[in-house]
């Protein structure tokens, strides 16, 4: 058994920790930087910004992504915006308020110092992106515009229509391109990391499959940066891209990296409801819609039933028979209550039999009032592309009839454990963006994911990576080391094993089965009995997978079934850990809602005495129960309190 390393949070007052850390950390001299080779896996906001910034400083960088171009990483799909404590609106915002909102939004389950640093660098992110030519929304006077997002009472969200993630990613992609052109970054698209190579306890490289030729190659580096996103696709249906997977972080976990808080998943309240078995993914519509849209269901189940059956139009429901349940339950935040709370409220309304989609799982998001107040043109300017998207998918016009929405898996707050320097317990292995666990606690606020990805890549890792690099000599291990050969062989053996099964069921059928189980037992609400049954069931699905999955084709060509099979095989192991984590956390907090632990009015009931800690899981070998480490969270600047948005 290993021990959980120190979190390396600097001492001293909260608001000067980061400054002091930067002032006292070791540096690498410019002429020495080129001797270090950094492997960056993933080219989303975190990966692209890290690769570009490190290359600019003079390090040698290799960057890998599974898509055909770095520009397609799933950060691109983020819609609503990015938070920054600029206080351009003069509405009382500050670094402290952004910090406080984020740590409160995370239900006091994040590390104070990390969150404060995030708020501190938030302003510089906006400056950086503006300088890159990111076309943020502007006011007529030419200054940057802001909008409001859930969980905040100030307007601090910067945006580029409903395509903020796209524009920020293209900014980072352009910075990356400049470095690729200059030869400082070597880019490997259509390349999937399949394992981590650890030599003498240090992360020293990765094994990668070329998705076009099937070639499996090894790459050695002085540090490995995993920027590989979250694990939302363990649910099969999520708002993630189809290719998003847990393989990189899970493989690192099996090589010794601790996985922290895997049970923290975010269910986003405003997604388009599921319509059938064929469904391959769920589509999110920006939370910013809740600025102008009102969420409601009918007060009575019989009215809801008429709507479900198409016997009544939503506009026929009189005002007095509508339940604007968010406005009713949370008057001070109303429709802008945080995601976890809004999602659970939608589930409750549907569990009451008041859901309005044909499946019973859906609530209305109604723009009629805002259209009356501001005119359709203004609403179109604010959210035009989202209305278009809604119509493309559902065939309905959101201006004329209320949209139907339902919560869907969207983001995962858990991830590999990292210290203040973003380094995992494996020296040399750093984890950035959604792939780590560090900043969002048990629930992430809207417009904070983009902020974190870019904070980690542009501003944190360039200052914290040298802390590790200064202690090693560059280029010590090459791919001729026996450990590289061993891991490479293991990867080949895994691929051959998958191809040799030749059973009867498709990869997707297993993925769907796993996803349904996890959604049912470890989704919006969890309980002991359900989690225990899932922990028993997942290994059975896994066992059948290895006996009965059918993968056509060979390993030496573009083979999408094989790619999927490798990812699903890892989800089938990861899903079990997720349920174990949810079972062990005997409290409700943020996105983790255990039915046994709730207040009389159905709100999450935290247990700060026993659970104000990070759970970091250690892999202890195949078939062995993983070990749960605890990192106690110390709160110095904020007082733990019951989160209230009423």
């Amino acid at each position: 058994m290993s021990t959980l390393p120190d979190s390396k949070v600097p001492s001293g007052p909260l608001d000067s920790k980061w400054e002091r850390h930067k002032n006292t950390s070791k540096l690498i001299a410019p002429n020495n930087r080129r001797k270090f080779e950094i492997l960056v896996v993933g080219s989303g906001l975190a990966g692209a910004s890290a690769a570009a910034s490190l290359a600019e400083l003079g390090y040698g960088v290799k960057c890998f992504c599974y898509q055909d171009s770095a520009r397609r990483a799933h950060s691109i799909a983020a819609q609503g915006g990015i938070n920054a404590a600029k206080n351009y609106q003069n509405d009382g915002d500050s670094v402290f308020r952004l910090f406080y909102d984020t740590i409160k939004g995370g239900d006091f389950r994040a590390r104070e110092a990390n969150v404060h640093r995030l708020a501190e660098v938030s302003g510089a992110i906006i400056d950086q992106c503006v300088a890159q030519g990111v076309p943020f929304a502007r006011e007529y006077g030419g200054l940057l515009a802001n909008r409001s997002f859930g969980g905040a009472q100030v307007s601090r969200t910067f945006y580029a229509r409903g395509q903020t993630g796209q524009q920020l990613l293209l900014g980072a992609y352009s910075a990356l391109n400049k470095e690729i052109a200059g030869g400082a970054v070597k880019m490997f698209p259509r390349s999937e990391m399949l394992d981590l190579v650890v030599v003498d306890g240090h992360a020293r490289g990765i094994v990668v499959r070329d998705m076009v030729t099937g070639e499996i190659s090894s790459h050695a580096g002085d540090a490995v940066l995993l920027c590989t996103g979250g694990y939302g696709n363990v649910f099969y249906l999520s708002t993630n891209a189809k290719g998003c997977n847990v393989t990189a972080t899970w493989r690192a976990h099996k090589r010794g990296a601790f996985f922290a808080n895997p049970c923290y998943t975010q269910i986003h309240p405003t997604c388009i409801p599921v319509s059938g078995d064929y469904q391959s993914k769920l589509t999110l519509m920006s939370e910013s819609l809740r600025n102008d849209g009102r969420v409601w269901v009918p007060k009575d189940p019989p009215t809801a039933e008429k709507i479900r059956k198409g016997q009544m139009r939503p506009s026929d429901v009189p005002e007095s028979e509508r339940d604007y349940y968010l406005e009713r339950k949370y008057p001070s935040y109303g429709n802008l209550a945080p995601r976890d709370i809004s999602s659970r409220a939608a589930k409750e309304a549907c569990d009451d039999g008041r859901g309005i989609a044909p499946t019973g799982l859906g609530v209305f998001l109604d723009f009629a009032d805002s259209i009356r107040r501001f005119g359709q043109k203004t609403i179109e300017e604010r959210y035009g592309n989202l209305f278009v998207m809604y119509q493309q998918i559902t065939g309905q016009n959101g201006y004329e009839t209320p949209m139907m929405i339902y919560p869907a898996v969207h983001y995962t707050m858990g991830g590999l454990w990292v210290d203040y320097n973003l380094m995992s317990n494996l020296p040399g292995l750093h984890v950035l963006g959604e792939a780590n666990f560090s900043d969002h606690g048990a629930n992430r606020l809207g417009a904070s994911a983009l902020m974190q990805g870019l904070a980690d890549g542009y501003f944190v890792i360039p200052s914290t990576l040298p802390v590790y690099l200064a202690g090693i000599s560059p280029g010590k291990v090459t791919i001729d080391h026996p450990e590289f050969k061993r891991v490479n062989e293991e990867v080949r053996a895994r691929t051959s094993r998958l191809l040799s099964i030749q059973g009867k069921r498709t990869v997707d059928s297993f993925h769907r089965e796993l996803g349904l189980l996890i959604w049912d037992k470890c989704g919006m609400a969890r309980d002991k009995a359900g989690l225990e049954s899932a922990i028993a069931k997942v290994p059975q699905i896994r066992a059948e997978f290895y006996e009965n999955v059918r993968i056509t084709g060979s390993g030496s060509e573009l083979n999408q079934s094989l790619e999927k099979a490798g990812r699903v095989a890892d989800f089938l192991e990861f899903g079990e850990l997720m349920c174990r984590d949810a079972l062990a956390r005997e409290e409700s907090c943020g996105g983790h809602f255990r039915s046994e632990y709730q207040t009389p009015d159905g709100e999450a009931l935290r247990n700060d005495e026993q659970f104000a800690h990070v759970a970091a899981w250690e892999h202890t070998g195949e078939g062995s129960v993983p070990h749960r480490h605890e990192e106690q969270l110390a709160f110095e600047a904020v007082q733990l309190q019951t989160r209230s948005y009423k």
Partner: protein
Amino acid sequence: MNLKLRIWRQKNAKTAGQLVEIDAPEIPDECSFLEMLDIVNERLESKGEEPVAFDHDCREGICGMCSLVINGEPHGPNRATTTCQLHMRHFKDGETITVEPYRAEPFPVIRDLVVDRQAFDRIQQAGGYVSVRTGAAQDGNAIPIGKVVADKAMEAAACIGCGACVAACPNASAMLFVGARVSQFALLPQGQPERERRVIAMVETMDAEGFGNCSNHYECEAVCPAEIKADVIARLNREYNVAKLRQAVMA
């Protein structure tokens, strides 16, 4: 609905491909075009046949990874819609649908419907950026940009890099794609210092990659899922000509 697909099968870049007929019965109207292909693929796999390879990822119209030429049109019959956002309710029961990869020399087929679009990345690498060191930026509000200009730049920046413009063009021209990026930066104050160097480098790379020239067919504008307007091509030409002229005069 019951459909018949005529779909391009090609083992790899070295072998020849051909259109193969596949029956696709009992497809739900509500599913997307790619979900229809998922269903077809699962059926093929259940029979031990290799599924049809196609590119896709976000399935919400923004990543630009999905492609396909459907009944002769890149991204299919609907305007301002990517293949992943195209739904089967727009097709008729009993219809035969022809599905091919993008056809353009700079986009070689890798397998079935998957093509290699790295030429686009190389064009961007040639100059599609503003050189700004991380951390060296001034305050965001120190560069005021009028709303009209900012909106115009955003319209150009909305390009998703899918390559439909190239596939639709009889000349396999990439000028809509290049024009969008050049326009975004030519409009914005941040793009001014590298304005001329950028357009020359991007156009030269575009030519070297084998993309053709624009001869005003406007097919690109018609198929563009991000609704990039062909006036970015006019701006690209203007930017390029001015840059070359100034280069000649300054030499």
